[in-house]
């Protein structure tokens, strides 16, 4: 039995090329391989401290080719699709993200790359594919960032609609005009217009352990959310997702219920393609 050490320190007067500590008793063969004059240590699973003094004195940073990791780059891949889709870039100190731009009933796997000022690593071992599965529509508020097509999720506005839900027809809006002339067939002009409009009716909240409740504050929050002018991510149960703007909303109280249950009906208009954006929780 012996005790752990939690502090490592080097003293002058001296020059240190590196300080490297592992949490095992390395073999003689391993040690012999490190004694070359130009040997450069690299981070291993057993490493607890590695300071290479590559322009800084950080002691836990993995380095390669003289540079430290600055960011993690996260990409995802839908099952059945070989294309990697960018998700986010996060600083090296961050070790997780929450990706909201995922569709229901869809499998995803993720790849994480380490980035230094000059290099990209090979991806970390790819995660196992996971398949989303939930039984609700959801409307997620997004916050614009300085990066095009990259949004932070407004975590105060992640609305799930599961109870007493009914969806209106999804109307595809296209642009076609027919011009009658003296020819056998008319001329039809068209544009690129192609968007979805629809509406959702549901209770504003959902039962928890069989008990339903909602509040005036919740209603007011949703009212502000509908009118905040920010882009929103709408997802259905089947596996579709759209970027939408909420166009209108109605609240209907159930007068005969003791809880004065609040039902809402909001209309939406698609304003973008969810495949072209990233939507993650702020780290």
């Amino acid at each position, binding site marked *: 039995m012996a005790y752990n050490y939690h502090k490592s320190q080097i003293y002058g007067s001296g020059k240190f090329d590196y300080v490297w500590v592992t949490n095992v008793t390395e073999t003689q063969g391993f040690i012999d391989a490190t004694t070359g004059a130009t040997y450069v240590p690299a981070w291993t699973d057993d490493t607890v401290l590695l300071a290479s003094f590559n322009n800084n004195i950080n002691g*836990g940073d993995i380095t390669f080719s003289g540079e430290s990791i600055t960011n993690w780059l996260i990409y995802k891949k839908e099952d059945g699709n070989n294309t990697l889709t960018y998700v986010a870039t996060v600083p090296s100190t961050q070790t997780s993200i929450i990706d909201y731009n995922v569709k229901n009933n869809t499998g995803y796997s993720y790849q994480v790359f380490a980035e230094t000022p000059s290099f990209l690593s090979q991806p970390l071992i790819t995660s196992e594919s996971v398949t989303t599965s939930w039984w609700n529509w959801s409307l997620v508020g997004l916050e614009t960032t300085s990066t095009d097509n990259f949004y932070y999720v407004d975590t105060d506005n992640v609305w799930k609609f599961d109870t007493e839900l009914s969806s209106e027809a999804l109307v595809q809006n296209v642009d076609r005009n027919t011009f009658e002339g003296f020819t056998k067939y008319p001329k039809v002009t068209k544009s690129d217009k192609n968007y979805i409009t629809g509406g959702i009716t549901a209770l504003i909240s959902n039962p928890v352990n069989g008990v339903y409740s909602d509040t005036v504050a919740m209603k007011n929050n949703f009212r502000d959310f509908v009118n905040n002018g920010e882009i929103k991510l709408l997802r259905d149960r089947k596996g579709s997702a759209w970027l939408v703007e909420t166009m209108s909303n109605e609240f209907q109280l159930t007068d005969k219920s003791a809880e004065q249950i609040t039902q809402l009906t909001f209309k939406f208009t698609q304003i973008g393609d969810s495949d072209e954006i990233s939507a993650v929780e702020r780290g």
Partner: protein
Amino acid sequence: MLYKPSYMRPYLSDIDETVSNTFSCNINADGGTTATKYNAYISDLNGNVIYSTGVQTLSTPLYNGQTLNITIPTGTGMTNGTNYIWNVSIYGANFDIWIANGIVGTGSTTTSINLGTSTLIKTGMYVKIGSESKLISDYNSTTGIATTSAFSSVPASGTDYSVYATYITSNDTYFRARSQATLTINTVTSPITAKNYTFEGTYTQTDNVSYKYFQWVLYSVVSGNYVEIETTDKITSGNVEYTFDGLTTSSTYGVKLILENQDGTDLQTSISTFTVTYTSPELSTASTAVVNCDKTAIQVSWVPIPVNAGESIGTYTILTDTPFAGAYSVELDSTSSIYWTSSNLIIPPEFTLFLNWQSATLGWSGILYEHSGVGIDLVAMSTVAPQTNNVGDRYFNTSTHLLYICNQINTWSSSGTTPSVNEIYVYNGQNYIYNGTTLVTTAYTLPTYTISYNDGIFTSQLDNMGTSTTKTVTVSTIAKKWLLQANGADKGQDYRWDDTATWNDTLYWTDRTTDYANNHWFKITGQSNALQVVTH
């Protein structure tokens, strides 16, 4: 009937007069009517014709909608850097192109018709009076007299006439003569050895026509196919360059440059391909993805690689190309040190330490490395949780024998953890250890491990849980020989034999060994029960 040609090219654009150019226009004509000849003119902006192709007969007549291509050779008299006008006359088979109407003036004869002065009437047109039409063999624009073959009778003054032509002339079309603009991508280093690279282009135009905008297009080359991965915005100022950050190793890319200059000339390069190769470490950790139904999202996590910010006491200097080209080192003076400490930094009792070290001061000796235990402070050891606490505080519950940590101000974690048998806990200045059941007081002090150097000897000293282990490695034995100096001479000095001296057994000769540690690098490997040093 022919109509004025359209889609004149060049139009508000540039041609290089030093090379042959093709001018063109579209023929406009009634169905069945053909253009059989043409004559193109180039004029300066004062209206002076400086070049004409002359009337050229088309080997194949052109119908409505077809394009007439006209070759303008070099040596036309145009000069690059100057602006010009061009037009073209298109000829048909019949004189059915109406030019003017008028009334015959006085003094006409059967072959000399007074048509009046007109800028529209030209020699070669036809004048029609009544049912007779005659070719105008000469027209005097000053007198208005047209010479024709003989009419059957002298046209009376006041008789209506019409003038027709077999050709029609286009509108004047403005263009510029400019030397050829060129656009190239400067040589791309291949392979590129980093994930970012700045591509540079060169645009030249000797008449000082600058660019309006440029765009770069980057392709990924996959199985010989060029897949566009990024197109820049239209960049309207600055150097013609583009930095892309995100090149992956072992990949092939292509890059293309597009540019439009202020005269509307579009230029683009061919695709330059290059490869990217750099050492890309394989990280052995894995990422995990978990569906978060509560958030209707997926949480992705990966094993953290700790970033333990070093802290310094005194000053330090980062050295480049030390101890070898491309390497970095840090230098500390005798009053400075650097340390790393955090709860995440756990060096277990069985460890391996690697150092590459060199002394920075002649004759220096002392501790060069140390790692030590840090006691875990407890704010309480009690049966009930303290009511006030700060984030990070810990307390030991003497009833549950568990440790609790404060996650939020005045809020303890809901579940406790069993203390570690490898840690020393400190409460009220007293050290405690976990005996498997609860925390008990101990006389053990915090563990330490040091490596020191003195006169060619490295020494490691480990003190942990009452065990003390010392290891030494001698890399240089200081030679002491009899010489004419007193014992304890400064070994940092140089000495020589004094030929006038006489032998004295009470004096020493000291070899100069103190610079040994300054002239070598030492690969030091320390373990709990071993110390190895390799000298370079």
